[in-house]
C-alpha cells in the first residue's frame, strides 16, 4: 500500500507540473512490460503520452535476419543455440519452433556460456549461437566467444545480429514522424554503456533523456524528471545500478570482439554503424563466414504493423489484427510474440494498460 501511495503522489506531481502535449518514448522492452503491468498509462495525466519505441531486441530483428537464423538451423551439422524469446518469432515462411518440431536441432539456452559448454560436450556438432540483443547482452556473447577460444572449443560460432541503442534514436528523430519530447532511456543497456552515449540527444536535437530503472516508481520519477527539465539534458534516475561511465570491463570486451557494422532494423531499415560485427580476428568464429546459406527474399506478414509500432507511429490497439487475428497464442508479428513486445504487453495487461 505504501508503494501505491507513493505512486499516486508521483502521479499527482506529474498532473500538476506537466504542460500540455508532452510525448515521451520508452526504448526498452522491460520498461514496456513494467508500464503495462502497473497500469502506469492510467496514472498519467492526459497531457503526458507514453509511447513505445524500438526497444525489444527480438522485435527489431529484421525478417531477412530471422530467415538467416532459420537457414542455419536447417543445416544438418548445425545445432542452433538461442535465447528463448527468439523461438516463436515468425520468419518469412517458418519459425525456429516449427523447424525444431520438423527435426532441426534448436536448443534454448539461458546464457551464451551454456552454448559454449554444449559445443564442448558435443564436439561432433557445429554449435551456432544466434546473437540477438543490445549492449546489455553483446558483452556476454563476447566473453563467451573468448571463453570458447581459450578453452579450445573449435565448434562454437556466433551469428552476430547485435545492435546498439543510440543510433536508432537518432534515426527516429531524423525521421520526425512523431513528436518526441524526451526518452525514457534503457536501464540495463546503460549499465554497460554509461550515460554519455546519449548526450547527442540533448546537444544535437534538444531532446531530453532520463535513464530509468524498472520499478513503477522509477518510471514515474524519471517521467517527473523529464517534465521538470527546463533545458533538455540527460539524467540518470537508475544510479543504484548505472554509473556515468558504464561498465568499462564490458566495454573493453565489446571493443575487443566487435566493431561497428550495418544493422537492419524492423521498422527502421538498415542503419549504418548500428550493429556489432565480429572483428576479422574472429572470422573463424563468425557463423556468417563459416556457413554459406542462401535465403530467399523476405516476406512480411500481411497487415502487420509491427514496424510502425516500433517507430512509435502506431499504437498497438490501432492495428486491425491486434487481439483479433493476432494474439500471443497465435501471433502474426514479432511485437506480439516477444513477451516484451509492445503488442504482447498491451494484450496481456489489457484493461490496465489502455
Amino acid at each position, binding site marked *: 500500500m505504501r508503494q501505491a501511495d507513493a505512486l499516486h503522489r508521483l502521479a499527482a506531481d506529474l498532473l500538476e507540473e506537466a504542460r500540455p502535449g508532452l510525448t515521451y518514448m520508452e526504448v*526498452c*522492452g*522491460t520498461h514496456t*512490460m*513494467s508500464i503495462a*503491468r502497473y497500469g502506469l498509462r492510467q496514472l498519467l495525466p492526459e497531457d503526458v503520452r507514453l509511447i513505445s519505441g524500438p526497444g*525489444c*531486441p*527480438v522485435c527489431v530483428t529484421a525478417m531477412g535476419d530471422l530467415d538467416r537464423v532459420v537457414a542455419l538451423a536447417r543445416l544438418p551439422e548445425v545445432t542452433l543455440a*538461442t*535465447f*528463448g*524469446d*527468439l*523461438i*516463436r518469432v515468425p520468419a518469412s515462411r517458418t519459425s525456429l519452433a516449427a523447424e*525444431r518440431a520438423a527435426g532441426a536441432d*534448436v*536448443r*534454448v*539456452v*539461458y*546464457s*551464451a*556460456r*551454456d552454448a559454449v*559448454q*554444449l559445443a564442448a560436450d558435443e564436439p561432433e556438432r557445429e554449435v551456432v549461437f544466434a546473437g*540477438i*540483443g*543490445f549492449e*546489455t*547482452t553483446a*558483452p*556476454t556473447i563476447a*566473453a563467451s566467444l*573468448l571463453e570458447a577460444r581459450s578453452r579450445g572449443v573449435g565448434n562454437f560460432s556466433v551469428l552476430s545480429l547485435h545492435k546498439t541503442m543510440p543510433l536508432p534514436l537518432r534515426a527516429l528523430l531524423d525521421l520526425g514522424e512523431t513528436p518526441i519530447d524526451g526518452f525514457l532511456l*534503457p*536501464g*540495463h543497456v546503460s*549499465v*554497460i554503456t554509461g550515460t554519455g552515449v546519449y548526450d547527442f540527444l540533448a546537444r544535437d536535437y534538444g531532446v531530453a533523456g532520463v535513464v530509468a*530503472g*524498472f*520499478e*513503477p516508481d522509477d518510471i514515474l520519477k524519471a517521467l517527473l524528471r523529464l517534465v521538470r527539465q527546463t533545458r533538455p539534458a540527460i539524467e540518470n534516475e537508475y544510479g*543504484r*545500478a*548505472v*554509473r556515468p561511465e558504464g*561498465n568499462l*570491463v*564490458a566495454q573493453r*570486451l565489446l571493443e575487443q570482439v566487435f566493431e561497428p557494422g550495418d544493422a537492419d532494423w524492423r521498422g527502421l531499415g538498415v542503419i549504418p554503424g548500428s550493429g556489432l560485427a565480429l572483428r576479422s580476428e574472429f572470422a573463424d568464429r563468425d557463423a556468417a563466414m563459416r556457413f554459406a546459406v542462401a535465403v530467399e527474399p523476405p516476406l512480411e506478414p500481411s497487415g502487420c504493423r509491427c514496424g510502425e509500432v516500433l517507430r512509435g507511429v502506431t499504437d498497438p490497439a490501432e492495428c486491425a489484427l491486434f487481439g483479433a487475428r493476432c494474439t*500471443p497464442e497465435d501471433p502474426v508479428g514479432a511485437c506480439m*510474440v*516477444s*513477451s*516484451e513486445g509492445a503488442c*504482447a504487453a498491451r494484450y496481456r495487461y489489457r484493461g490496465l494498460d489502455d
Partner: protein
Amino acid sequence: MCLALPMRITALNGSLATIATEGLEQQCSLALLPEAGVGDYVLVHAGFAISVIDEDEANETLELLREISAFSDEEDAVSSGGRLEEPSGDDANAGGGDAAG
C-alpha cells in the same frame, strides 16, 4: 531481453560466482564484473554479473522482475528449469531462456 535479476554472491571459484536468490543457487560468470566479491548483490544478465547494487534495492526489484521472467518462460512454453546441466523431463531442447525476457 535486457532483463537482469539481482542476486547475492555466496561463494567465488575463480571467475565464477555462486549466486543465490530465495534459496536457489546458480552460477554466474564474473568476466564482466571482476571486482565483485562474496556478499555483494549483483545484477545478473544471461549468466553474467554486470553491476553491483545496494542490498535493499535488490530486494525491492525482485518482485517485478520475477513476474516478467515468469511471463517470458510461459511465453516460451518451457519450464523454469532449462539450464543445460539440468535438462527438464524428456525434452532437453526446452530451456528456460529466462534471462532473455
